[in-house]
């Protein structure tokens, strides 16, 4: 019961933060609020038993992501312009999508139901086999590295590729070469 109350309070705070982000037009405040959003969601991850995820979200969402957004604002503009179109059409789109998603959740098992399909197949098997096969206390690390090592290799490659993409777009390697060509000409 106390779990549910905590979760609902945290979720309400998240919703309030998100609505504040919608209303703000000063981008510095928006970035700070998105940091707050990340920290609140890290708290929610702890109550959902996902301590590793909470750790990552706190480090990534409140740390790196805030720094990157602030450096982007420093390179662009600090204030958002008022939109010239009405918010009516986006609002209708969002309402229709939301209604469809709510309809989709009607068939889902209740929150925390131990007989839910997601909890009865491969998850318990991992939990049962980790002490025998791998003998590592943190089941998340065991699955991440060993049972699902291919996934993680792919994710590391995606992170690597995104890094290369940012370097290509921003690091100025191409500009240097253009300058050299101008010098030669």
């Amino acid at each position: 019961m106390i779990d549910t109350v905590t979760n609902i309070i945290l979720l309400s705070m998240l919703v309030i933060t998100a609505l504040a982000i919608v209303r703000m037009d000063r981008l510095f405040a928006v970035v700070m609020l998105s940091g707050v959003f990340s920290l609140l969601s890290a708290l929610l991850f702890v109550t959902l038993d996902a301590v590793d995820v909470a750790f990552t979200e706190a480090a990534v969402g409140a740390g790196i992501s805030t720094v990157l957004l602030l450096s982007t604002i420093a390179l662009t503009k600090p204030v958002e312009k008022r939109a010239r179109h009405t918010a009516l059409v986006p609002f209708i789109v969002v309402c229709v999508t939301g209604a469809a998603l709510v309809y989709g959740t009607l068939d889902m098992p209740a929150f925390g139901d131990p007989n839910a399909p997601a909890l009865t197949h491969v998850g318990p098997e991992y939990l049962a086999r980790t002490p025998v096969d791998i003998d590592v206390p943190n089941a998340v690390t065991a699955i991440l590295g060993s049972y699902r090592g291919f996934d993680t290799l792919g994710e590391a490659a995606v992170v690597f590729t995104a890094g290369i993409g940012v370097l290509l777009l921003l690091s100025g390697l191409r500009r240097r070469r253009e300058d050299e060509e101008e010098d030669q000409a």
Partner: protein
Amino acid sequence: MSKLLDLQFLAGHAHYLLFIVLMMTGLFIVVDKTNLVKKIVGLNIFQVSVFMFYVSIGKVKGGTAPIFPMDDKYHVDTAAMAGQVYSNPLPHVLILTAIVVGIATTSLGLALIVRIRESFDTIDEEDILAIEQDMTREDNKKHGNAMGGLA
């Protein structure tokens, strides 16, 4: 839809409804706001609420975090594990990697915004559209006939 009026049902599904409200707030920012940085923030809100939804599926009532007790020889203590319920660790693994990949791709988007600012001197979608329309009109005036029609 009559299920939504049932209190018992609503208590079990309130989380999902609030996750959807959060998702839709993110989607609204992405669709309605014209500032590109704000769109990225909205995308992040959407992303995080999907993560929370996904992790909440792995939660078991009365369960605890999937980290096992150890004995004094640093092996997993299977005796102490008996009777303890653990939440499903699989969603945690998938979301853990997705968060880091998410920030890497977000930074790619931010880098694109910086380049757009350098080319157009604005990060407002409507302004960029107006500039591009002007450019097309100029092109049509100059090369329209040579290209065999308006672009």
